[in-house]
């Protein structure tokens, strides 16, 4: 997902009886569906875990601008250009809300940015794949935003108030993003032979990377168990992946496109699709920095940051001059 492989305390979930009174009250509040707010007491592990998760999500929005930004100057009509630009702008906005949510936990946006640029903090693996044709703008909206929504809709009920509220706004926009992606796919799939070919090619390349977005199976993971107890993770990776496949397979059929998985089949009894696992070795390679575009993505972010330094410094210097002139006048 936009936040993948987030580690928690690693110590397993404590029972209520093992907790000190403060922590017990905290956990009971979460269990009862209450929200934790920035000034409330919280365990250090909860705070750190949330910073990692929200930070990674924010970084994903920021880096996620790049693969789609890659097509803004080549968008085929004025309307498509405007829609794509608006979508990428929304992503910058999501990054902003999420950095603000993370800041309520005692970390600054600049700290998080430094950790992204140095490679210490990650962003979603999906954004390390290239966008090669216009149909990829459709596939990203349909599959990538579709997968993100699976995770983000339940996160609107997450225990941390600022995160849950940011997610409410984000989800509204994400569903528009997914629809515009599907709309591009419809045009492409039902268009000329070349367009149909682009659509199929985009699905071929984005299918397994989209399944990887949910992360490897975490049914046995102590990190996931703790995050779920804290309600900062609402479902297991496998549950969400299944839901995604169940939703997407009929859509692909409707488009007249073939999901690149010969084993994909509807199980009439369960009502769920069976499907092939993605290549997890590739997933771990991407996380390690060996995806097709990891180097370009980080280079692009670093370049923007380095070349923007004089602008940030200039505007700060001006604001300080203005302040001191105002004070001198008073």
């Amino acid at each position, binding site marked *: 997902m936009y936040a993948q492989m987030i580690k928690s305390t690693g110590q397993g979930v404590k029972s209520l009886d093992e907790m000190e009174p403060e922590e017990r009250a905290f956990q009971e509040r979460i269990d009862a569906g209450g929200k934790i707010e920035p000034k409330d007491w919280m365990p250090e592990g909860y705070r750190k875990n949330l910073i990692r998760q929200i930070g990674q999500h924010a970084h994903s929005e*920021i880096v996620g*601008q*790049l693969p789609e*930004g890659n097509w*803004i*100057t*080549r*968008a*085929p*009509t*004025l*309307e*498509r*250009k*405007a829609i794509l*630009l*608006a979508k*990428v*702008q929304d992503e*910058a*906005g999501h*990054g*902003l809300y999420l*950095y603000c949510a993370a800041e309520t936990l005692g970390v600054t*946006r600049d700290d998080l940015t430094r950790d992204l640029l140095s490679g210490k903090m990650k962003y979603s693996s999906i954004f390390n794949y290239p966008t090669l044709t*216009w149909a990829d703008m459709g596939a990203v909206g349909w599959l990538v935003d579709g997968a993100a929504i699976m995770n983000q809709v339940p996160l609107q009920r997450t225990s941390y108030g600022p995160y849950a509220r940011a997610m409410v706004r984000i989800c509204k926009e994400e569903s528009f993003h997914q629809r515009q992606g599907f709309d591009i796919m419809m*045009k492409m799939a039902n*268009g*000329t032979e*070349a*367009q149909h070919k682009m659509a199929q090619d985009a699905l071929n390349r984005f299918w397994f990377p989209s399944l990887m977005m949910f992360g490897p199976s975490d049914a046995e993971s102590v990190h996931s168990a703790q995050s779920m107890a804290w309600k900062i993770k609402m479902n297991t990776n496998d549950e969400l992946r299944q839901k995604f496949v169940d939703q997407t397979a009929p859509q692909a059929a409707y488009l007249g496109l073939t999901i690149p998985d010969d084993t994909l089949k509807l199980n009439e009894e369960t009502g769920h699709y069976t499907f092939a696992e993605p290549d997890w070795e590739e997933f771990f390679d991407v996380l390690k920095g060996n995806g097709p575009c990891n180097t370009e993505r980080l280079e*692009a972010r670093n*370049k*923007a*940051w380095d*070349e*923007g*330094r*004089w*602008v*940030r*410094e*200039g*505007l*700060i*210097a*001006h*604001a300080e*001059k203005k302040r001191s002139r105002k004070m001198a006048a008073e």
Partner: protein
Amino acid sequence: MSQPLFEYLCRMGDNALVLGHRVSEWCGVAPVLEEDIALANVALDLIGQTQLWLGLAAEVEGKGRDADNLAFHRDVWDFRNLLLVEQPNGDFGRTMMRQFLFDGWHLAQLQALMDSSNDQIAAIAEKSAKEVTYHLERSSDTVIGLGDGTEESHRRMQSAVDRLWPYVGEMFLSDDVDQEMMAHGIAPDPASLRAGYDTLVADVLAAATLKRPEDDFAHKGGKTGVRHTEHLGHMLTQMQWLQRSYPDATW
């Protein structure tokens, strides 16, 4: 009358199209997140204005073309934008200086067009002027902030205004198309906007501690389409590539 009007509408539309495209090139790589968002806003407004101006141009022309045909299927010599807006982005300072120099003229132009004898033009101008008021406010503030910032930001902004100034004069030149528009009360005399523009630029540059270049030499040939810069062709190569590679497709 329809040909000069078509030309005139293409001038308005192409300015918005070309500058909107240039600004959209910043997507995802601005100096700070808030600037990414603000630049996207400006680009979106300009693309929206393009749809209105070129849409009306196509209607006036009456040959069955639409705004997309005009944007994606004309070559360099048919473009009617000012040379200023096709200038490459350069650094963020040059992008914002170009924006300011254009916005100052653009707002005055739109305000004058709000009194146009052509109701459709007046309506587009009114809608656009609201957006451009914000563009000018923001580009002025940024020029002032960076001009009056650090030594480096000051130096870069001075170099930006020096570099772009030769493209300012074209905005105030007139030709037969302008004469025709004036005669029908459709559009203002371009020269009539100069005094207000000079005052605005003088005020903003003073607040930015920047010097107005002394030489008012003006390159021309953009709005007439006679001689664009080499940059426009490269921009169109990228912008029009999909439409031209797959002419039988709809998107």
